[in-house]
């Protein structure tokens, strides 16, 4: 009931609309990858290696003669799935942590000091260390990224919880005899949805970049899985003779991450009452 006017307002800004369209296209391509690409992403054709863009191979071929376009479209599946799972996992874990830390004063200091300690590590370094310990696999990359981004969500959610818990309505529902767990779940959590939504979109974008970074450094997903990061990593040695092997996956990363950031900005501006007038 409330959503359509909000959505319209969100897409009212041209940049947000463009970002949404770009993301929609990428998502459709990723979901329908087998139908949109005529080649198998792992079919090698040594004779066709490092061919430039042509009508047959829209984005050229890589060092093993695999179709770049097919790999990018299929790679979108992996890259987006990793990012989505990371965003989901870190938001769930971070929200729980932040809610508990913000609501129960006694748990605040111990939980937040752990969060501070985790945040004091540079993101990518922590992720590298975790993948190095866990071993490179799709699941472990997601796990590492979730651990990296959870503290970020926890902080935002805790700060918002501190504000909401002091509102009079919390006391009012307590006066109604509602138990604490239900107060948290049904009365406080829904009030935190806007900052959480903003975090989802930003972490989604960060996770795409981080996965690409990890794969580029060789500590991400195994190279046989086509993600945009592994494609840039694999193509880097050939970049001076065949620019397309790094250009297209790079552009895919940039467009996706940028669009997500724009969308996140749009959501944040929309939900921030102080900025509403400026829109």
């Amino acid at each position: 009931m409330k959503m359509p006017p909000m959505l319209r307002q969100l897409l009212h800004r041209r940049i947000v609309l463009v970002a949404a369209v770009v993301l929609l296209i990428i998502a459709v391509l990723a979901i329908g990858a087998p139908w949109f690409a005529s080649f198998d992403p792992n079919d090698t054709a040594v004779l066709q290696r490092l061919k430039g863009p042509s009508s047959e191979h829209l984005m050229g071929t890589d060092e093993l003669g695999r179709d770049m376009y097919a790999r990018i479209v299929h790679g979108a599946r992996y890259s987006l799935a990793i990012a989505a799972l990371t965003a989901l996992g870190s938001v769930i874990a971070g929200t729980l942590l932040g809610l508990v830390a913000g609501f129960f004063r006694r748990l605040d200091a111990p939980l937040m000091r752990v969060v501070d300690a985790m945040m004091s590590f540079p993101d990518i370094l922590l992720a590298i260390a975790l993948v190095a310990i866990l071993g490179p696999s799709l699941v472990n990359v997601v796990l590492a990224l979730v651990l990296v981004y959870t503290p970020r969500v926890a902080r935002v959610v805790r700060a918002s919880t501190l504000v909401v818990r002091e509102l009079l309505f919390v006391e009012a529902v307590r006066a109604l005899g509602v138990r604490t767990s239900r107060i948290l779940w049904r009365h406080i959590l829904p009030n935190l949805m806007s900052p959480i939504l903003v975090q989802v979109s930003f972490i989604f974008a960060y996770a795409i970049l981080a996965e690409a970074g990890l794969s580029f450094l060789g500590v991400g997903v195994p190279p046989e899985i086509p993600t945009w990061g592994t494609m840039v990593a694999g193509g880097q040695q050939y970049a001076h003779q065949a620019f397309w092997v790094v250009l297209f996956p790079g552009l895919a990363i940039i467009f996706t991450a940028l669009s997500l950031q724009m969308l996140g900005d749009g959501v944040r501006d929309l939900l921030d009452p102080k900025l509403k007038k400026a829109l």
Partner: protein
Amino acid sequence: MEADPSTNPRIEPRLAVQRLSTSFPTEGGLVHAVADVSFSIAPGKTTALVGESGSGKSVTSLTLMRLLAKTANARVSGVARFATREGRSVDLLKIDEQALRALRGNQLSMIFQEPMTSLNPVLTVGEQIAEGVRLHKGLGRSAALADAKRMLDLVEIPAADRRVHEYPHQLSGGMRQRVMIAIAMACDPTLLIADEPTTALDVTIQAQILALMRKLQAETGMSILFITHNLGVVAHHADDVVVMYAGRVVESAPVRPLFAAPAHPYTQGLLACLPGRARLAGRAGQPRPARLFAIRGQVASPLAPPPGCAFEPRCDLAIAACRDAMPELLATGAAREARCIRVAAALPEAA
């Protein structure tokens, strides 16, 4: 322990508060926000708790509902006997959390001062009214929502069918307070604690809300603990009045005798502050007073209370003996008490 007929020699009171004290440890020392407060409320009656800001009236209500923040480390003593619907008598200050939760919102409800922030902005008013109903009456979602509609009708909100699905921001202040009343009344409480329910509303809406509360009280026979600083409201809506100053009861009396002949100098001062009274005084004798009467000075710091009577520094009738010791509550008439050693001198001469 039976209910003590402290101020009300009538039938067994709905709530009997005896020697209630609440203090908070602060960096400056122990603050006695509420000290030695006793009063009682008979079934179907309204007792008003009157006092200026900082007199401890809100802390009293929060203590009774056990809503003081745990982190405040409040030290509470005293007894608050509540007669339940089932005919049992429980001490609100001692029963365990689970038993208390079963009473709150069910037999014992509270309305807050700020209708703007007392409602959850992201839930519809129907869901919020249904919350207590589902909890205490064990109704399902749709049955509770139907009950919410009935409650909106009861508090005279027009187009209840539509309003149940609306969010608080779509309602005016007066309507939100009606919704708050609907939430509080949803389970037919026997005691309603109303903490300045009309302070944030404009005067015409105030009158409507008060009339509504009156109507509901007449229909359900609930008792009301009415916390306010508005003596005009007290005169119209209360049966008994308890005047608080600096955390203590300074005077308690049935409403008519209190307004006719206030015993304590503080009560006298409060009444003299009413604009209507000032005009009357002007007509009856001396030239019309140019300004409203105001009690001079301000409430003493709770960290450094005066050694004797707390009101002594502001009192026009104070004598040296007032500084010596805190006066006791003295009976001044039928069901009347006042905390002043000069009660005799303070009684209006010609009244």
